[in-house]
């Protein structure tokens, strides 16, 4: 009995060591470690992350918490290394290593854009994602995007965003704070300064790595090379 207990403990320790020791690209090739990471991460996610990102990982427009299942990332490419760094140091968390390059500026409050100009930019943003919009206003917004609004500077010329700055793509059907005109207006008028806490020091390195693996798997569920297929089965 004692030997079995000891053996189990050693097995868990070896899996933990392998989880944090292996390079991220090696991890996804090992079903046992992925399974171990997933089972460790689920309760951690529920306890520490779900209040903002939702129990289903679909995010929350009210607090600007992004959907974690869609493989669209604000920072980096969404590989395990990027995710781990974001979880460990956070976003604008106050940690010196956090992602904190820039904010969405308050274009209205700073009087960079007038109310009418902000409405025009919003119509352009809606046009980009082929949603119903006012074509004439969108045309004006298109000009403002590259001109007075300086939006292209972070969101890129093609509006696909820039993951170095945490500037989201404007082409998608979803936005961090929702797609209704009121929320879009608020984002442009008052700016945004979304925050994710740093978990370094609060969670152990192995827990942070497990969460990174968990999010990587969940966000690649639909891709053809989904590591999820390596999993024996999803834990309840």
């Amino acid at each position, binding site marked *: 009995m004692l030997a079995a207990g000891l053996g189990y403990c050693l097995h868990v320790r070896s899996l933990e060591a392998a989880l944090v020791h292996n390079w991220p690209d090696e991890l996804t090739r090992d079903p046992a470690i992925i399974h171990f990471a997933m089972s460790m991460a689920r309760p951690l996610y529920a306890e520490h992350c779900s209040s903002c990102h939702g129990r289903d990982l679909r995010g929350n427009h009210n607090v600007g918490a992004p959907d974690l299942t869609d493989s669209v990332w604000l920072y980096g490419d969404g590989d395990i290394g990027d995710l781990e760094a974001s979880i*460990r140091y956070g976003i*604008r968390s106050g940690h010196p290593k956090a992602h904190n390059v820039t904010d969405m500026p308050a274009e209205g409050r700073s009087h960079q854009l007038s109310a009418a100009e902000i409405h025009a930019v919003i119509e352009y943003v809606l046009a980009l994602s082929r949603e119903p919009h006012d074509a004439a206003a969108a045309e004006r917004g298109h000009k403002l995007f590259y001109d007075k609004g300086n939006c292209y500077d972070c969101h890129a010329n093609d509006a696909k965003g820039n993951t170095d700055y945490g500037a989201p793509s404007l082409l998608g059907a979803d936005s961090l704070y929702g797609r209704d005109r009121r929320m879009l207006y608020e984002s442009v008028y008052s700016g945004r300064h979304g925050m994710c806490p740093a978990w370094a020091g609060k969670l152990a390195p192995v827990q942070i790595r497990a969460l990174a693996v968990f999010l990587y798997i969940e966000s690649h569920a639909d891709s053809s090379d989904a590591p999820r297929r390596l999993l024996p089965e999803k834990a309840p």
Partner: protein
Amino acid sequence: MSMRPHTTRSMSMLALGALLGLVIAGYGLFTAKGTRSHGVPPEAIVLVNGRPILRSDFITQARTEFATPFAHCTTEQRRKVLEEMIAEELMVQRGLQIDLSSYDADVRAAMVAGVELEVTADVLAEQPSEPQLRDYYERHKSKYVTAGVMRLRDIVSRATGPVSVDQAMSTAREAVAALRTGEPLETVMQRHHLADSGRLMDAGRVDTGDVLEFAAREKLGGEMYGVASTLQAGQISDAIRQSDGVHIIFVIQHRFPVQQEYAAAADQVWTDYKNDALTRVRMANIRYLRSRSDIILSDDARSLEASPR
């Protein structure tokens, strides 16, 4: 009877142990390696004097430096990053060793900024709601008034030399009466030998242009401004006794401050709300740090601390 040999052996073992201890301590001392851990924790890529460099940081550094996914970084690139990170860690540790933060202004500033950022992160991220902003506006309404503007002259009847204060006061009163009948200012000044007080100056000349109220308060002083602020365009004050003579204020134009509605002041309210919140957090942090610190003040520092704020 049989104790003697055992005692000798014990003493020998003790001496051997002490010698061994000395050898280890000496080795540690002269190789300057101190105590070291031989096992690198699995989450670390290297231990530098016992401090781990995390694999996660190594991956991020390599990615950033070569702008390529870590999996595509070559061995040579990884080696370069590792050496740089070890070098950086060594330099940081050396900086701590020589207590760089006690005298290097840049290091101190960076540390202050780092701590401040950590403390204020939540406040910076907070987006105040509309009811919070309106409540703030109501509580600080007096801040949201447009700047009042005045154009005025401050003339004085000086009490110097043979002219007594009473005589100066009498002259000023006559001048006030004349001005209130509509006589031109320059005529009255000439007749009664009055002069500009010199308090309202701009680049060495008497300022006859618009003056913002806060500037007028600064230039005229509290008592004189108190009188001027109540006067409308074309009104003349009573004679006001001051240390340098008797003054008369003639208000040419006066645009009074106007209370701003919330909608007009909303942007400033937002800024002030955030700034106040930041100040509160910064002050609370300093109070907390002071509460757990042992600060011993010198006598003169104590008197400074006790002086009215």
